[in-house]
């Protein structure tokens, strides 16, 4: 050590540099306040002064990043939500949910016949830990993550229990908040559908061929 307390003076130089730098070089020194350094610029205006400046700037479709996830929502393909809802109430997500915050009841018509949609679909968002496992295990791409974060409520019980109708969101909305993910998912569904159709066609073909064969055989039998 060359001078007395040299290390201390070095440290003081660093803090002085930071003190001055916080006025001159905001990008480097005040990254938590100055968001301009974020290359994607995904942060909406006004979020830096969040509770005071919200209003219209923070709409329902505010999203922080492409993959930002808060709580799940149920997708429907437009029109009357319950007619086009993708969920068939298979309850896989209910079983796989790690904190077990999903509750599903199947829907039955008046004859007691199971119609492929949920009668009750509750998510207790005070328990939900936004892990996205339900999204991944869903075979029907019916449940995806919403990025809405303004859910604070003075009601401890009802306010944080999201019912089926709160959870239902259209696919268009999904495209708005997570465009890339939604496009990929749509493509996947289309591909699956196409594959399924092809399979169905093939199966139908096969069945027809088999039926024809059978018919011919039966005819042969008859002929005998």
């Amino acid at each position, binding site marked *: *050590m060359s001078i007395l*307390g*040299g*290390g*201390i003076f*070095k*440290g003081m*130089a*660093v*803090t002085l*540099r*930071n003190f001055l730098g916080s006025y001159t070089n905001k990008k480097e*020194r005040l*990254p*938590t306040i100055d968001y301009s350094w*974020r*290359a*994607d610029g995904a942060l909406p205006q006004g979020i830096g002064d969040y509770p005071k400046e919200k209003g219209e700037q923070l709409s329902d479709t505010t999203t*922080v*990043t*492409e*993959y*930002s*996830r808060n709580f799940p929502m149920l997708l429907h393909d437009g029109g009357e939500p319950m007619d086009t809802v993708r969920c068939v109430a298979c309850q896989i997500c209910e079983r*796989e*949910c*790690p904190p077990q915050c999903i509750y599903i009841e199947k829907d039955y018509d008046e004859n007691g016949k199971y119609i492929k949609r949920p009668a009750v679909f509750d998510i207790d968002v005070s328990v939900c*830990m*936004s*892990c*996205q*496992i339900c999204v*991944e*295990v869903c075979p029907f791409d019916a449940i995806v*993550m919403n990025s809405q974060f303004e859910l604070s409520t003075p009601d401890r019980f009802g306010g944080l229990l999201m019912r089926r109708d709160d959870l239902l969101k259209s696919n268009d909305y999904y495209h708005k908040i997570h465009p*890339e*993910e939604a496009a990929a998912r749509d493509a996947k569904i289309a591909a699956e559908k196409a594959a399924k159709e092809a399979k169905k066609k093939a199966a139908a073909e096969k069945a027809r061929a088999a039926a024809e064969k059978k018919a011919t055989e039966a005819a042969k039998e008859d002929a005998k």
Partner: protein
Amino acid sequence: MSTAAAPNYELIQQDGLETNLLEVSMGPHHPSTHGVFRMDVKLDGETVVDLRPVFGYLHRNHEKLAENMSYLSSMPFTDRLDYFNSMTNNWAYALAAEKLIEVEVPERAEYLRVIMAELTRLVNHVTLIGFFINDLGALGTPLLYAFREREKILDLFEQASGARMMCNYFRFGGLRNDVPEGWLKRAGEVVDRFPYFLDEYEQLLCENEIILSRTQGVGNLPRELAISAGVTGPMLRASGVAYDLRKVDQYGIYDRFKFRVPYTEGDTGDCYDRFMIRVLEMRESIGILKQALAGISEGEIMGNAPRVFKPKPAESYGRIEGPKGELGFYLIADGTPKPYRYRVRPPSLINLTVLRDMCLGGKIADAVIILGSIDIVLGEVDR
């Protein structure tokens, strides 16, 4: 061995005035116990005569919960073990499960895993040093510089995985999703910028006389004690053992990167060594990150693994060099979708076992910084 570090207190009592020992229960709401941890300390004046760590305040039944749900479902719970390093926790668990179901991880996923793990190491070490200096009594300045840098890395995590801390990003056989466009470039920028920050950090801390005199010779951990107690990670390397699972196991693709393992020359480590080893490790991590960011190529990120599976009855142990030490997951499969036994080897807990040996004979202020230098996260200690 434990008594070797502690001076003989009877001598003080012998010919001096008879004084009473002061029993102080530090914690669970003490400001510097890093969570809900308690130390029952017996003090002779300010000198620690006896110390009993008490934990379990944050116990949440992690292992038992995991034994009652499918393999995938406990993945998000591993985030909550060591909540600073969710990425590495994910990786260790994924390694263990991948051994059970034997899936191949695509190359891009392996690269991304390394990138995420090393970024996590940076996050962990930089904040740990901040907290450590905070325990030394600085008014949060180094901690806030650390948070400033951590913020940039957490933003990267958020852009990739959707969450800042509870990333839940790794999957058996790969990763949940690919990183968004331009992410690698941004990560490169952050990594390139990081050494400048480290220079500043070292300038602020490493030669400061107060830090030197507070940390050197405090909390000595002899090599034999460290080995026999099962201490791992930077703490073990600070005690003079160059043991790093990234070199030993070479899990993932760590054999492809050139990096060095810093360790202390002597056979005792003190708080200063533990602090410096972490600083040096960050530099190595930056080297790995640069190589990984240069070497990554396009490709698949998810191997051919089912979301929910029933592995054949088998055992597996997956371990990685986490930022805090060896993090291991031990799984026994019994043919059902749920593990028969799920066990975590938490580095925080095992490193904490030597706390008493290091603290005895020190001052009460030393006990605080020794605890800080161990680097524990109570989520992992108590599970």
